[in-house]
């Protein structure tokens, strides 16, 4: 399909994404086709009770079983293990991870790919904080918290990237395998740990500004508990990585 022989695999962890899944797949398929890329999407569903898997199978019929792979799991088992699970079925040489709730838009993937090719980077990460990046749906309070949190993490961890908790990234497959096998945290601290370790291992990282549309439906939580958890996570990384 694509002359350069590169294949791009998207690992999409889902839980109750029956409403969003068709559109996100539609956007991905459209983008890959328009850019003439060889692609597949691996949906790792954690036994969603809302029928996400049924939708996934229908999408597989529309787009082809070679493009849409459903690899479910028995229960809600966490993000890190979802990626590990998905990695087993990846047949591409590049892996893209992103969220299924529209906060990450597939239209940025060609820019990731272009930057990766230009400098043969190991990792390309989307950033909401630099260049033309931005966010929709954050009030001032949310921005203050986010910026303060990022400053704290950057000062302590010195990761070399402007957006440490972002989870919209492109990896070379062996790079992701190595990173996942060496991380121990859970949740979004896991995303931070990956970046800090990537720096440690000396992997080359590039950034592409992205627009982040937060919570198309409903508001995302950022209360005192979440802030404390975040600070704990940063401290944990500070003292262990």
């Amino acid at each position, binding site marked *: 399909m694509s002359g350069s022989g590169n294949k791009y695999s998207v690992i999409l962890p889902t839980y109750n994404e*029956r*409403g969003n899944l*068709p*559109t996100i797949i*539609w*956007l991905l398929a459209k983008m890959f086709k328009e850019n003439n890329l060889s692609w597949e999407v691996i949906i790792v569903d954690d036994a969603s009770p809302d029928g996400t898997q*049924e*939708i996934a199978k*229908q*999408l597989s*019929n*529309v787009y082809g079983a070679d493009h849409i792979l459903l690899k479910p799991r028995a229960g809600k088992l966490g993000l890190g293990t979802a990626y590990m699970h998905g990695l087993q079925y990846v047949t591409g040489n590049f892996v893209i991870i992103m969220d299924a709730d*529209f906060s990450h*838009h597939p239209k940025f993937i060609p820019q990731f790919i272009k930057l990766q090719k230009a400098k043969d980077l190991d990792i390309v990460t989307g950033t909401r*904080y630099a260049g*033309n*990046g*931005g*966010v*929709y*749906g*954050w009030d*001032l309070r949310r*921005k*203050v918290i986010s*910026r*303060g949190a990022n*400053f704290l993490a950057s*000062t*302590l*961890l*010195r990761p070399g990237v402007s957006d440490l908790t972002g989870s919209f990234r492109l990896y070379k497959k062996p790079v992701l395998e190595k990173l996942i096998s060496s991380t121990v945290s859970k949740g979004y601290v896991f995303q931070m740990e990956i970046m*800090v370790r990537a720096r440690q291992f000396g992997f080359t990282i590039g950034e592409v500004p992205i*627009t982040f*549309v937060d919570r*198309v439906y409903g508001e995302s939580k950022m209360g005192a508990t979440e802030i404390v958890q975040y600070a704990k996570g940063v401290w944990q*990384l*500070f*003292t*262990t*990585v």
Partner: protein
Amino acid sequence: MTRAIETATFLSITSVIYFLLLFKFVPTPAIFQEKILPVLPWWSLVSFGAYSLGNIGYHIFKFRDCDDAYFELMEQIQEAKTELRAKGVSIDND
């Protein structure tokens, strides 16, 4: 070496150098010794505090709101749902 150990090492080395200078184990010009050295730690702390606040404030000011991304996305969601419904995918009406 963890980030914590790196930081501790850096702070230890700078502290040792500072105290060597403060207690005159290494001679320095009088004006530096009497006026600048004693207040250097506090000055550094305050500067760091000012830098932190400035950095955070600046970035909050420059935070980009991307309304156009939201509207574009809303349109694409509708387009996707219409097309896939026609191809037999069970799209809920919401």
